[in-house]
C-alpha cells in the first residue's frame, strides 16, 4: 500500500479550506453554547489509520479517555467523520450549559445528548463546508456513538473503523476559558484521498 501524500501546496490549500469551514462551525457552536469560541490555525495531517491514535495524541496532548461520535459522509469523496472530546471536558461542559443562570439553549441535558449535539454541529458545518469548497455535496448517514470514556487507541482499533487513511483536521474549538476543546478527524479510503487531492489541484489552478 503506497502512502498517500499531499504536496505542500495541496496541504496549504486544504488547511485554508479547513480554516473557512472552522469559521462556519464556530459560529454555530457559539450559538449553541452561547459563548465566544476561540479559533486557532487548523492543522492538517494525513496518516495511516494505524498511526492515527498516536498522531492525534501528539497533536492534542490527550492522554485521558475520550468520547467519540462517528458519522458517515458520501460523495465521490467519502468516509467517516469522528468528533472527539475528552470525557471530562464533556462533563464540565454539561454542567456549564445546564446552569440555570446560563443563557444557553439548554435547561437540562445529558452528557450523551450534548456530545451528539456538539458532534452534529461540527460535522455538519465543518465536513459540509470542506466538501462544498471542493465542489462536492455530501450525503450524511445518522451519527452513532463510537464510545464514551474510551482511549484513543480503542477509538482507532483496526476492525472498528474500516478506513485506511485518517485526515487529522485539528480544529481547535476552545471556549474562552479553555474548559472545552473538540477535535475533528476525517477517515477516508485511499481512493477518496486521490479525489480530494485532484479537487485541491483544481481549486489551486482556478486562481
Amino acid at each position: 500500500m503506497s502512502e498517500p501524500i499531499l504536496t505542500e501546496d495541496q496541504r496549504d490549500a486544504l488547511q485554508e479550506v479547513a480554516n473557512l469551514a472552522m469559521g462556519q462551525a464556530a459560529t454555530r457552536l457559539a450559538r449553541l453554547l452561547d459563548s465566544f469560541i476561540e479559533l486557532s490555525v487548523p492543522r492538517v495531517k494525513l496518516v495511516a489509520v494505524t498511526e492515527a491514535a498516536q498522531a492525534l495524541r501528539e497533536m492534542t496532548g490527550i492522554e485521558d479517555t475520550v468520547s467519540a461520535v462517528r458519522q458517515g459522509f458520501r460523495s465521490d469523496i467519502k468516509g467517516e467523520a469522528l468528533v472527539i472530546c475528552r470525557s471530562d471536558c464533556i462533563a464540565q461542559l454539561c454542567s456549564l450549559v445546564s446552569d440555570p443562570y446560563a443563557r444557553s439553549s439548554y435547561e437540562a441535558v445529558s452528557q450523551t445528548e450534548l456530545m451528539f449535539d456538539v458532534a452534529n454541529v461540527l460535522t455538519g458545518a465543518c465536513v459540509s463546508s470542506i466538501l462544498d469548497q471542493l465542489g462536492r455535496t455530501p450525503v450524511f448517514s445518522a451519527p452513532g456513538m463510537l464510545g464514551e470514556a474510551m482511549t484513543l487507541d480503542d477509538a482507532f482499533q483496526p476492525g472498528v473503523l474500516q478506513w485506511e487513511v485518517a485526515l487529522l483536521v485539528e480544529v481547535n474549538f476552545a471556549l474562552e476559558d479553555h474548559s472545552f476543546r473538540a477535535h475533528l478527524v476525517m477517515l477516508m479510503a485511499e481512493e477518496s484521498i486521490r479525489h480530494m487531492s485532484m479537487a485541491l489541484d483544481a481549486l489551486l489552478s482556478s486562481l
Partner: protein
Amino acid sequence: MPLPIVIADDSLLARKVLTRALPPDWEVDVSYASNGREALALYREGKASVMFLDLTMPDMTGYQVLEALQHEDLNTFVIVVSADVQPMAQARVRALGAAAFIAKPVTPEAVLPILKEYGLYV
C-alpha cells in the same frame, strides 16, 4: 506612485484569493507576509498604507498585530480578513482599531466598497 499594501495570511491559497479580489487596475505595490511578525516588520518599513490582515496566524495572530499597532503611530488602514464570522470577533477587531472586516472567502464585491469608503481607490 503606487500605494504600498500588505497582505498577511499564513495560507498561500488565501493570499492568492485576496490578491485576485483586488481591483485589477488598482495601482498598488503588494508585499506578502505569512505571519503576524512579518506583517508588523513590513509595516515598520513603510510598506503598509493598507494592511489586509488574517486573524488566525502562527507567530503573532492578527489580534496581536492590531494590539502592537496601537503602540505605533498607526499610519495604516487595517482591513481584517477572517473566516471567524462570530459577531464578537468583528466587534473585537473594531475595538482594536481595524478599519473594516471582510469575511472569507473574499470576493471583489466585498473589497471594493471598503476601498471606496476610505478613499483608497477611486
